[in-house]
């Protein structure tokens, strides 16, 4: 056997072993189990149970609740009561799309609504719809 063939055989076998280790059948089995268990649920529930919402599942439920209660024609939504981290921002903007969203902005653009996560209710705003763990608010005047 030539040196080249030996190198080819050893390298291929080692690479295959390395790659097979990354495809752990036990983990794949658990993924299959999760897939089959969650398949009957609606897509929103599957998202709420997923990785994207794992940092704060209550916040994800709040966003979905806000989305469902959003009045038609809302110009935009400022989400308050959460830190402006990338995780929060990306999930809020994605879940509420196509409605424009700002997270914890310094100023709320005119005509926009507030979605408050938590018990705070800023002065000058009135609740237009209670949502999960928070409220949707519009300017009082």
């Amino acid at each position, binding site marked *: 056997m030539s040196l*080249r*063939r030996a*190198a*080819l055989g*050893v*390298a*291929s076998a*080692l*690479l*295959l072993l*390395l*790659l*097979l280790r*990354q*495809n752990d059948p036990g983990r*794949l089995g658990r*993924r*299959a189990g*999760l*897939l089959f268990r*969650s*398949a*009957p*649920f*609606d*897509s929103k529930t*599957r*998202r709420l*149970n*997923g*990785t*994207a919402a794992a940092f704060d599942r209550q916040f994800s439920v709040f966003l979905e609740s806000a989305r469902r209660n959003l009045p038609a024609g809302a110009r935009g939504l400022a989400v308050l009561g959460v830190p402006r981290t*990338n*995780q929060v*921002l*990306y*999930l809020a*903007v*994605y879940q509420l*799309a*196509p409605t*424009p*969203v*700002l997270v914890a902005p310094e100023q709320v653009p005119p005509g926009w609504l507030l979605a408050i996560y938590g018990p705070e209710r800023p002065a000058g705003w009135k609740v237009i719809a209670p949502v999960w763990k928070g409220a949707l608010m519009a300017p009082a005047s």
Partner: protein
Amino acid sequence: MSGLWLSLAQVAAILLAAGAIGYALAAFLFPVSSRRSERAAWGLALGLSLLAASVPLAFLTRLPPRWAPFILAALSLAASGVLHHTGQGASSLSPRERERVKGLMKPTHFLLLVLVAFGVVGYALRALTEPMWSNDFLAIWGLKGKIIFAAGAVPRRLFDDLSLGFSHPEYPLGLPFLYAAISFLLGRWDDHAMALLFPFLQAATLLALFGWLRRRGASRALALGAAALLALFEPLYSAFLTGMADVPYSFAVLLFGMALADALDQTDAFATRRLAFASFLAVSTKNEGLLLAAAGVFLAVLALRKSRPAWRRAAAAVAAPAIVLLLAGRLWKGSLPLRDFDLAYLGPTLILELLPRVGESIHTGLREVILPAWPGLLCVLLLAAAGRRAPAGDRLLLLASICAVAYLLVPSLAVPGPAWLIRTSLARTVCALSPLAAAGLAARLRIEGLKD
């Protein structure tokens, strides 16, 4: 059947229909004697491109976006006249030859096929366990697709709203258009069932790799072996990258590399068309497509001495779609800077800061990405050493190497610092070169005299 299973069946039907239409259209990319596997892979690429293109076309012509793909497919098929020729080119083998080929299947082939199937099933499970969730899906690719679908238009705010800057307005819209097109056909936004697109892309990548290697003379064992190793490559076919542009781009890069090698080697009269289409695909999927196109032109120039007409045709096929897409994007979106990069580091005022940044890029890349992957990289180096010089394989490996080195060095221009971009992007962008590298390595091993 209800819930997710029904949605998956609907998405599968859309993807299969796109692939079938693309398969018919692929008669214009391949000679009659082409292999089914390769044609099926290019067919899916063509079908998905038509699907994605139907969205801007519908917006421009005010056609209902749901019907635009059908109209576009019918027009393409009618214009190309392939409705009368779909049977051609399906297989170059006679029935007797096909029987003989079937008879040549050996236990090794079955074992390799099982490994390929394991890789595909494994990725399907990773991709479909939950709705697509990675940051870049939520912030970039999925967000844009969802906005385009929900708005029934491409809102200007995707390009000029500062609060959406994180979604990278300068990125190409190929994948968001594809998401929107599938959603228009489905009649809803389903970011779980749509993940099925990714195992389809993986399967098409494997078919393209297998078909090209076989056409270029590789044994069935070698072609299947390369496909098996690629199918099992979890860093690319991962749950995290599902939804992002890296898997579609890796497919486009493979098609580009194979077509470039074919065009420079003048394997058939259709190679230049394939190259132009692959260049279009790569540039419309990721910004890295422009780098790939530049590297492709460079490789074409390197082949200048061998055949002047071939390099000219290849360079034009690579450059023309890239330039057209670049200009079209500029006209449509306006001048959008690369958000993550500051090109001032290449200018006279900051050039002195560039060298330490290059050093930081290389150091972070070595320490945090390359060294932790040393066992796999060592195997790849051994495989490269075990092969022999082969023009096609060498070109693919050179193309992959140029891109990999660029991915290591370009973060030195990153605004938040080289280390940040290396950590967030080097591993996945280099992983997207793995199908190209697999093709290059296997093409070099082909002449080792490996028999089935």
